[in-house]
C-alpha cells in the first residue's frame, strides 16, 4: 500500500499540457492536503460570517423581551442553525482544515494519509452543510413544519458527520504513520499532537452522534412518535453541541497557542512532555461527550448530608473527570508559558496575540462550564450555557485566525501585515467577550436559553444589546480578517522560508510548500529539528 499520494497537479503536468485541467477542476478534484486544508478553512470562515449574523439577529430579537419580529417557528430554527452552525459549519472545519494543511508539513511527510478519503470527507461535509441550510430555509429545521425537509435535515446531518469523521480519521492516521524518521511521539510538534488527540476524540464522539442520527432518521421517516418528531431532532444530538464536547473542537486552537509559546520565547519549550500531557488532558472531554452522563456537581440542595453517598461520589467523579480535567489541561498550557518566557526577550507577533487571547477566551469558557455544572446555582437551561459555548467556540475561532496568519506563508507564500492584524486580534477578543460575558450575567438572572421572550428582574435590554454588538463585532472581525488575508496572500510581501524563526519541520521547506512538501525525507533528532540545525550552524 503506497503511503505517498502524488499531488494531482503534478500528475497532470506529467501527462502533458493538453490534458491540464481547468483551475476549478484542479481544486474540485484535488487530493493535495494543502488545498484541502485551505478549502476547509475558507468554507469555515464563510460559514462563520453567516453564523455571526444569525447570532446578531437572535440577540436583536432578545432586546425587546416582550415582542418578536420573526415568527416563533423561524426563531426555533434559527437557534438550532446557530448552535449547529457554530460547531459544525465553522469551528470544526477551520480546526480540521488547519490540521489537514499543516500536520503533514510538521511531520516531514509528503502527503496526508488517505488523501482521497479526506477529499471525500470534505465534499461530504460541504454538501451536508449545503443541504442543511436548504432544509432550514425550506422550513425543515428542528421544529420545522415541512416533513420532507426535516427528513432532509436529518439525512444531511448524517452526511456532514460522515465527512468530518473521515477527515478526522485521515488526520489521526497521518500522525500515527507518516512521521519523519527519528520523530517519535514525544517529538511530535505540539499542534500536530493536539490535532491527533482531537481527531481521536472525534473518532469516538462523532460515530455515537451518527448512530443517533440513524435512529432519528428512521424514526422520523416511519414513526415520528418515539424520538419526538420534528421538535425532538436536536434533543438527542445536544451533546455534540455543548460542553465538554466543544472543548474537543477547540483543542487544535489550544495546540496552536502552545506551539506559539517557544516560537515567541525563542527558546526550546521547557517541560515539553508536561505540555503534551496537558493537551492530552483536554482530550478527556471526548469521554464526556460519549458517556453523556450527569456532569453536574452533586449534593444539590442537600447540604452536606451523606444520604445516597454512592451516587453523590459517582456524580462527583464524573464532574471532576469531564469538566475539571480538560480545564486542568488548559491550565497546564497557560502556566507553562511564563516558564518559557522567563529570562528571554519574547518577540510578540500578531499570530501569538490571536493564539493567546483566543485560548484565554476558551479558558474563560471552560471556567464557565465548571460553574454551570454546580446545580445549586440554577444555571442549567439559562443563557449562561450559550455564553459558555460562545466563549469556547468563538475563542477557538480567534486562535484559528492566528494560526492562518502564522502558517499562511507555507500555504500561500506570502505574509500578512502584522501591524494591521494586531488591532484585529484585540477587536476579535472584545467581540468574544461581548457576545459571551453578558450571558454569564443574564444567566444568573435566569434569562432562559433558546427563547426570545422572557421576564426577569434586572436590566434585560443591556445584556442583549451587548451580545448583539458582540456578534456584530465578530462579523466585522471575520470580514476584516478575510479582506486582509485576501489582499495579503495575493499581493503581500513574499515570505521567506522561515519568517518566524521557528523550530519545527514545516519551516524547512520553501514557502509556499511545493507539491509533495519535501524533496527529501528528513531525519530528526529532537522535538525542535530546525533549531538543532540553526544551533549547528551557529556553532560551526
Amino acid at each position, binding site marked *: *500500500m503506497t503511503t505517498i499520494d502524488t499531488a494531482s497537479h503534478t500528475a497532470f503536468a506529467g501527462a502533458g499540457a493538453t490534458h491540464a485541467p481547468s483551475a476549478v477542476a484542479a481544486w474540485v478534484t484535488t487530493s493535495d492536503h494543502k488545498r484541502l486544508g485551505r478549502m476547509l478553512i475558507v468554507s469555515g470562515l464563510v460559514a462563520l460570517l453567516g453564523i455571526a449574523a444569525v447570532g446578531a439577529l437572535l440577540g436583536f430579537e432578545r432586546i425587546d423581551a416582550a415582542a418578536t419580529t420573526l415568527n416563533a417557528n423561524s426563531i426555533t430554527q434559527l437557534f438550532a442553525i446557530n448552535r449547529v452552525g457554530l460547531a459544525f459549519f465553522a469551528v470544526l472545519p477551520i480546526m480540521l482544515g488547519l490540521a489537514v494543511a499543516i500536520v503533514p508539513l510538521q511531520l516531514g511527510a509528503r502527503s496526508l494519509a488517505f488523501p482521497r478519503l479526506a477529499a471525500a470527507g470534505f465534499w461530504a461535509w460541504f454538501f451536508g452543510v449545503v443541504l442543511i441550510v436548504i432544509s432550514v430555509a425550506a422550513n425543515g429545521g428542528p421544529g420545522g413544519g415541512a416533513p420532507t425537509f426535516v427528513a432532509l435535515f436529518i439525512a444531511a446531518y448524517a452526511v456532514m458527520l460522515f465527512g468530518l469523521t473521515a477527515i478526522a480519521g485521515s488526520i489521526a492516521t497521518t500522525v500515527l504513520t507518516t512521521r519523519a524518521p527519528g520523530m517519535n511521539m514525544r517529538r511530535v510538534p505540539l499542534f500536530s499532537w493536539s490535532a491527533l488527540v482531537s481527531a481521536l476524540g472525534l473518532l469516538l464522539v462523532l460515530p455515537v452522534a451518527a448512530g443517533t442520527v440513524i435512529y432519528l432518521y428512521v424514526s422520523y421517516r*416511519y414513526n415520528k412518535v418515539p424520538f419526538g418528531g420534528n421538535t425532538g431532532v436536536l434533543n438527542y444530538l445536544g451533546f455534540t453541541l455543548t460542553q465538554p464536547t466543544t472543548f474537543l473542537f477547540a483543542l487544535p486552537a489550544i495546540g496552536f497557542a502552545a506551539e506559539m509559546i517557544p516560537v515567541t520565547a525563542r527558546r526550546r519549550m521547557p517541560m515539553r512532555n508536561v505540555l503534551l500531557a496537558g493537551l492530552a488532558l483536554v482530550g478527556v472531554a471526548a469521554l464526556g461527550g460519549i458517556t453523556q452522563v450527569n456532569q453536574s456537581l452533586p449534593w444539590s440542595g442537600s447540604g452536606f448530608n451523606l444520604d445516597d453517598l454512592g451516587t453523590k461520589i459517582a456524580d462527583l467523579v464524573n464532574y471532576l473527570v469531564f469538566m475539571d480535567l480538560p480545564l486542568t489541561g488548559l491550565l497546564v498550557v497557560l502556566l507553562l508559558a511564563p516558564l518559557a518566557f522567563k529570562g528571554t526577550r519574547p518577540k510578540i507577533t500578531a499570530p501569538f496575540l490571536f493564539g493567546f487571547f483566543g485560548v484565554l477566551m476558551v479558558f474563560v469558557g471552560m471556567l464557565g462550564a465548571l460553574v454551570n455544572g454546580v446545580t445549586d446555582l440554577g444555571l442549567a437551561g439559562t443563557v449562561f450555557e450559550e455564553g459558555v459555548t460562545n466563549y469556547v467556540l468563538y475563542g477557538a475561532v480567534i486562535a484559528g485566525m492566528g494560526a492562518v496568519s502564522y502558517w499562511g506563508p507555507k500555504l500561500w507564500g506570502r505574509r500578512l501585515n502584522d501591524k494591521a492584524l494586531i488591532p484585529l486580534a484585540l477587536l476579535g477578543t472584545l467581540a468574544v467577550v461581548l457576545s459571551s460575558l453578558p450571558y454569564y450575567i443574564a444567566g444568573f438572572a435566569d434569562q432562559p436559553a433558546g427563547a426570545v421572550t422572557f421576564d426577569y428582574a434586572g436590566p434585560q435590554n443591556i445584556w442583549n444589546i451587548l451580545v448583539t454588538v458582540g456578534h456584530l463585532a465578530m462579523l466585522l472581525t471575520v470580514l476584516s480578517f478575510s479582506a486582509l488575508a485576501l489582499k495579503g496572500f495575493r499581493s503581500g510581501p513574499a515570505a521567506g522560508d522561515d519568517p518566524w524563526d521557528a523550530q519545527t519541520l514545516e519551516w524547512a521547506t520553501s514557502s509556499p510548500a511545493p507539491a509533495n512538501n519535501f524533496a527529501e*525525507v528528513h531525519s530528526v533528532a529532537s522535538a525542535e529539528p530546525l533549531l538543532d540545525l540553526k544551533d549547528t550552524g551557529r556553532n560551526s
Partner: protein
Amino acid sequence: MLALPPAPAPAPRRQLFVGTSLAAVAGAMLVGGMLAMWLRFRNEAIAATGHWVPEKITIPEVPSNIMLLGFVGICVFAQWAVYAARRDDKQHVGVALGLTALLGLAYINAQVAVYVQMELPINDATGSAYGVMFYAVTGTMLALIIAGMVFSFVAAFRYLGGRSNDREIVTAHAIYWYFIAVAFSMLWFVVYVTK
C-alpha cells in the same frame, strides 16, 4: 533554505492497518452508541408498560444464532487469508477471501429471514420505538457487512491482481471482520438474547 540531513527511506508504517483499526474503533462507537440507546429505550419502555418487544412478535432464534455462528467462520477464513498471504499462497488467499465474502452474503440472507419471519411493523400505532430501533440497528449492521464484503473483493482483486507483496491489505481486512464479529456479538446479545 535550510537543509536538514536526508534520511534513508522510511520503513513502512502500516498505514492501511492503522487506518482500518481506527475505522474499527469508530465503527465500534457507532454500534455501541446505538446499542446504548437501545438499552435506554428498553429500560424506559419496561418501566412504563412492562414490556419492550411488541406483543405477538417473536424473535426467530434460529437465524439469529446462525448469524452469530457464521462469524466464527468469517474470522477463521479472514485469518486463513492472512496465514496464506504470509506464505505467498495465492490460491488459498483467494479461496479464503472468497469464503469470507460468501459468509457475509449468508449473513444478509439470514437477516432477511429474520425480517420476514418477524413481520415487525416499523410504523407501530402504539408509538413504541421497538420497530424503528430494530430496523435501524440491524440495518446499520447490514451496511457494515456489505462494506466488509466490498473490502473482501477489493483485497482479493489487489492481491490476486499482482500486488502479492501487499499483505497489509489482507491483514487490515481481517481486522475489519474481527471488529464486525465483536460488534455483531454485542448486537446479538442485546437485541436477540436479552430482547
